[in-house]
């Protein structure tokens, strides 16, 4: 699914990723945990293709293709989805229109015809039901005036609609109360069940999300690289001992 080798990246003049390695197979859930400034969000942005981040070394292969060679929109159409830590507002842009454009861009990329409006509306209503999302939300502008929880739910909803092969969740749990956290986790688990070959990369600061979205692997990230990997019990160990006990290899 995703092979990251010796990835190095910087923003402006600051080196952030310093030789990052990760291998994700189809159907796996990986969690990356780390303190603020360890490079977690940079990793998400680099994988998404954000221009401000300059890749200075290493390689990333996504479904056998060179990910770093693709534009952000191409990565998305190939099946990479990034749920944002801070989803942006698009005033006046209806969610339904936004999603239809995204959905049809993906279909076109796959050589399919765009889905007619009526069928598309049926599809989003079905997905909304699946995720227990209030369909009224779909009549609003993208994230405009949404609460923090609504924004994150909207991210998961988009993820469900676009049916990605790899889902990256960038601190999706930050700022969520326990109810919203459960709704989001329910969404992720539904998507996981829907397609067993779908992979997830969950980036988080805290262990609590991992109570609901159970990872196959947990990686501890410090100063731009992974310093320790293990099973889900590693998250609990972190919770107990703190990040202080993990120092980067010299």
């Amino acid at each position, binding site marked *: 699914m995703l092979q990251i080798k010796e990835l190095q990246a910087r923003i402006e003049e600051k080196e952030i990723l310093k030789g990052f390695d990760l291998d994700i197979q189809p159907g796996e859930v990986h969690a990356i945990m780390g303190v603020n400034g360890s490079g977690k969000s940079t990793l998400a942005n680099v994988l*998404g*293709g*954000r*221009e*401000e981040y300059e890749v200075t070394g290493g390689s990333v292969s996504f479904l056998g293709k060179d990910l770093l060679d693709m*534009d*952000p*929109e191409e*990565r*998305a*159409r190939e099946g990479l*989805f*990034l749920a*944002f830590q801070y*989803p*942006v507002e*698009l*005033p*006046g*842009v*209806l969610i339904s*229109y*936004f*999603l239809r*454009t*995204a959905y049809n*861009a*993906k279909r076109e*990329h796959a050589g399919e015809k765009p889905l007619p409006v009526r069928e598309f509306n049926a599809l989003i209503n079905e997905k909304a039901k699946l995720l227990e999302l209030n369909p009224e939300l779909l009549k609003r*502008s993208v994230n405009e005036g949404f609460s923090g929880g609504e924004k994150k739910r909207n991210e998961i909803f*988009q993820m469900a609609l*676009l049916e990605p092969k790899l889902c990256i969740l960038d601190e999706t749990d930050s700022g969520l109360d326990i109810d919203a956290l459960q709704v989001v986790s329910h969404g992720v688990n539904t998507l996981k069940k829907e397609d067993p070959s779908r992979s997830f990369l969950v980036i988080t600061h805290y262990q609590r999300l991992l109570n609901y979205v159970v990872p196959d692997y947990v990686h501890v990230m410090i100063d731009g690289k992974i310093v320790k990997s293990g099973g889900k019990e590693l998250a609990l160990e972190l919770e107990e001992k703190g990040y202080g006990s993990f120092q980067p290899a010299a």
Partner: protein
Amino acid sequence: MPTWERWCLQWGYMSSDTETLENFTEQEYKYGFTVDIEADELPAGLNEEIIRALSAKKDEPEFMTEWRLRAYRKWLEMESPEWAFIEHEPIDYQALKYYSAPKQKPQLESLDQVDPKLLETYEKLGIPLEEQKRLAGVAVDAVFDSVSIATTYKEELSKAGVIFCSISEAVKEHPELVKKYLGSVVPYTDNYFATLNSAVFSDGTFVYVPKGVKCPLELSTYFRINAQNTGQFERTLIIADEGSSVSYLEGCTAPMRDENQLHAAVVELVALKDAQIKYSTIQNWYPGDKDGKGGIYNFVTKRGMAEENAKISWTQVETGSAITWKYPSCILKGDNSVGEFYSVAITNNCQQADTGTKMVHIGKNTKSTIISKGISAGVAQNSYRGLVKVLRGAENARNFSQCDSMLMGDKCGAHTFPYIEVDNPTAQVEHEATTSKIGEDQLFYCNQRGISTEDAIGMIVHGFCKEVLNELPMEFALEARQLLAISLEGSVG
């Protein structure tokens, strides 16, 4: 006097300048010549003889010729306004040609008689007449360079008693209406460009909707500028008689050009008691190339007069022209009259726009709404200039203004010059303004969902302008959406 006040006062007076006057009188003698009436165009230059020749070519009655001459003499005393937030080289009015006919016979009865090349050009511009004809309920009066060449749906309109024709035709066929209303809202002394227009207007549209008639069709005129060096001086006069209503749309495009072209149009709307006029504009003239070379200078005077219970609504989507100088206004003269102004102005590359509105509340319980959306990209400058004036007798007048600006990139500018004058304490005037930027984060968010950057910009800009675009007639909403996207092509990344 501060330049701003000069703009506010510019309803019927401009200071005279004797030096200019002398210059022009001298030139008149210097360039004295006779004019060949049979020629397809008049030679370049502006003097009384040219105006007489123009009037004669159009076979106008004496009152019209005299009116033009009075305007011309007034114009000689005026100076070009300097207060707008725009910059351009001085315009050489003597280098312009004031009349040019298309290279074909005028007065055609059907489209079959139109030069196929001409029709082809329309199609390239995406406004094929054939398709326009099929568009339900749209009558088209195409003005191609100065002379009307095709008029459709005239019969259906005449059944309803609606007069929809070129202004040249109206001058001859309905002189009593023209005499009564031409210059009644924008007098020939009004301002530099309106006065010039009054002297030399080439052609334009005339609409009269009789008492109690709801115009059965959406009226529309497409303007184009074609012949080299021909200043376009369109004149539009729309009269909605008591209790009637009409919706009119003008859409403009122009081919690639290398020289600056002047366009100084005048539009007058007369909404009598209980009448409603909705006037929509899609303006897409050649804006010049990326370095600001070429492009149309668009100096337009648009104003409507609303009598008791009447309503005038201006909607404009301005994407073209090198310079846009235009303030569609409403004089709310009658009690309970309503004025509206919905505007989207996009400036890209080196374009400059100074546009807005004037709402003058005279009658009691008059209401006005102003929604203005300005978008700047490249190194363009975009200004909103608006006046809300409540006169002493305007009890309970109400105004709401909202001016939003959007910037793309960091080299462009957005400016807002709202001006409010209230002489009645019962008035309620509200003004809101915002400035925002299309952010890299918004674009990346769209890209990450698989949406291309061009589509993302189109979507974000459309969302920003939605309140205004919703005011456009249905048939043109899609066209406007595409126009927004095209206008901003290549403005990011």
